[in-house]
């Protein structure tokens, strides 16, 4: 698995981050709960993402340089965010409101956004998807959920092999996906032949993975648009 040989940490306005010029994708995690922030940060790091965790929608917008009040559009060059994962229920600005702000921004609307919530409410899920969220995770979030985030990544990242398979969606091919202890087939994350040990699932079909009752209901919805095509 690829590792950064050299990582330096910079402090920028209180955000402690490492440079994004490495191969690891950078996730911005937003959650007002201290415990959940620590937890999601760990899940992300274990899945080889770089993480910046903030405690509010407002802070997230500041980090992106979108906050109207600080009126800085230059913001954080070189700290590209490849995905945003946010809690839904937060005081001040909800995850839904944050999602909307991001999708309304010409600079940032391409960043995939995933919503998390402890409440499994279909209307809520639908609303988020309609607003452009990629997925909706029911809390507590599982490692298998986080591993799926690679499917939504913006940046193309090479892990020693180029992305073949002709998908339009830029993906991270991560060899550790194949060695995970998850017994279920990772349905969407592999389009090329990098997965000899699993039954290859072509992106053009609409596979259903083996859902468990605990799976986010969005998973089934997303299956029909699946295969990494966007």
């Amino acid at each position, binding site marked *: 698995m690829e590792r950064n040989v050299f990582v330096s940490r910079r402090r920028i306005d209180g955000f402690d981050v490492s440079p994004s010029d490495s191969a690891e994708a950078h996730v911005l995690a937003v959650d007002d709960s201290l415990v*959940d922030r620590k937890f999601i940060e760990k899940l992300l790091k274990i899945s080889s993402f770089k993480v910046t965790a903030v405690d509010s929608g407002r802070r997230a917008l500041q980090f992106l340089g979108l906050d109207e009040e600080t009126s800085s559009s230059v913001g954080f060059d070189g700290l590209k965010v490849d995905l945003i994962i946010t809690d839904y229920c937060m*005081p001040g600005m909800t995850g839904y409101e944050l999602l909307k702000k991001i999708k309304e921004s010409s600079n940032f609307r391409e960043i995939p956004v995933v919503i998390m919530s402890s409440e499994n409410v279909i209307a809520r899920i639908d609303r988020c998807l309609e607003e452009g969220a990629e997925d909706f995770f029911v809390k*507590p979030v599982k*490692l298998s959920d986080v591993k799926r985030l690679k499917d939504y990544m913006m940046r193309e990242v090479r892990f020693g092999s180029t992305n073949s398979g002709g998908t339009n969606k830029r993906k991270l091919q991560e060899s550790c996906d194949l060695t995970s202890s998850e017994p279920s087939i990772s349905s969407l994350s592999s389009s090329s032949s990098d997965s000899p040990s699993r039954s290859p699932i072509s992106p053009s079909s609409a596979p259903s993975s083996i859902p468990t009752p605990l799976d986010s209901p969005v998973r089934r919805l997303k299956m029909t648009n699946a295969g990494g095509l966007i």
Partner: protein
Amino acid sequence: MDGVVQLQKQLVDYIASLFHEGFLDEQFNQLQQLQDESNPDFVVEVVSLFFEDSERLLNELAKALEQKTIDFRKVDAHVHQFKGSSSSIGAHRVQKVCIAFRNYCEEQNVEGCLKCLQQVKHEYSLVRNKLETLFQLEKQIIAAGGSLPAT
């Protein structure tokens, strides 16, 4: 090394009993599985955050329920947070009380809420003691040169 083996067995049995009695659920296993050499204190750290957070929430709840006119939305917001954090670490019984607590908030039932506050305080202190005992056991094993049993 006999002492270590004893301790390890004690730990395994203890954890099993916590699951059996419903103090902890599968989510706690998830936490343990995330712990590795690069972050060997992960579980203790997260649980410590949970303790801090919980004390704060319990204080807020007590205050909110002491008011002459109770703001049930505020109470509910705190319980919602408590439910979330207890669920994230697998504190199953605490989480269950929070669910009942939220129902009473919805009904604006003061007595029910007060009852639940007592219950949640009680369950929280129980699980806190259990977890502290668990961490103590782990410390003893490590101090005796042993390693923690795999989860």
